[in-house]
């Protein structure tokens, strides 16, 4: 698995990525498990995925985002399994020449995740 993992996520690996000299903008999104799920306090949220399809779709979407927004670097990780409140479920980081493409590229990947990538919140406890 390249983009999905059952291990805890940390943005440190992404933060160590050196920026290309022609990139002036870096945008990072972190999605974190919140205390309230549908108004009910929880400790964990559990995610599952259709792994081979999610990986293949992500591979293609990331390539599309690189070309469409001129991104020099993309980092995408989604955690699966039980994730505790306050822990990171997803990291999306991009480098681009200018701010507009960086925001657009990061949001393009996030909206694609929310719409198309076969990952589900399957239970909260």
């Amino acid at each position, binding site marked *: 698995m390249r983009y999905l993992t059952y291990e805890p996520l940390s943005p440190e690996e992404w933060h160590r990525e050196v920026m290309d000299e022609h990139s002036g903008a870096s945008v990072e999104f972190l999605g974190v498990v919140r205390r309230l799920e549908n108004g009910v306090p929880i400790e964990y949220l559990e995610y*599952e995925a259709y792994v081979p399809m999610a990986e293949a779709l992500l591979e293609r979407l990331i390539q599309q985002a690189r070309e469409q927004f001129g991104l020099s670097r993309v980092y995408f990780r989604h955690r699966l399994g039980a994730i505790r409140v306050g822990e990171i479920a997803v990291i999306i980081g991009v480098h681009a020449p200018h701010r507009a493409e960086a925001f657009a590229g990061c949001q393009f990947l996030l909206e694609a*995740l929310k719409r198309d990538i*076969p*990952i*589900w919140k399957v239970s909260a406890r």
Partner: protein
Amino acid sequence: MTISLLVFAHLKPILGAESRPVSLPEGATVRQLLDCLLTEFPALSEWLPSVRVAVNCEYAAPDTVLHEGDEVALIPPVSGG
């Protein structure tokens, strides 16, 4: 022919398993597969309007023709992130 059916998330209890083989006539389409499943699992009807189908890891239209050994997945609305 036989295809391999995968279901996820809240569809699992309805079909009673994560994965199962399904026998279909040669040349059957995605739509025909769904019709077969609805007959066998009427509880699916509530969910089907929001379910998308993937064939071999690609979203597929209802008139997509299936082939022996295809991996067909019922994809309920996703909720990652």
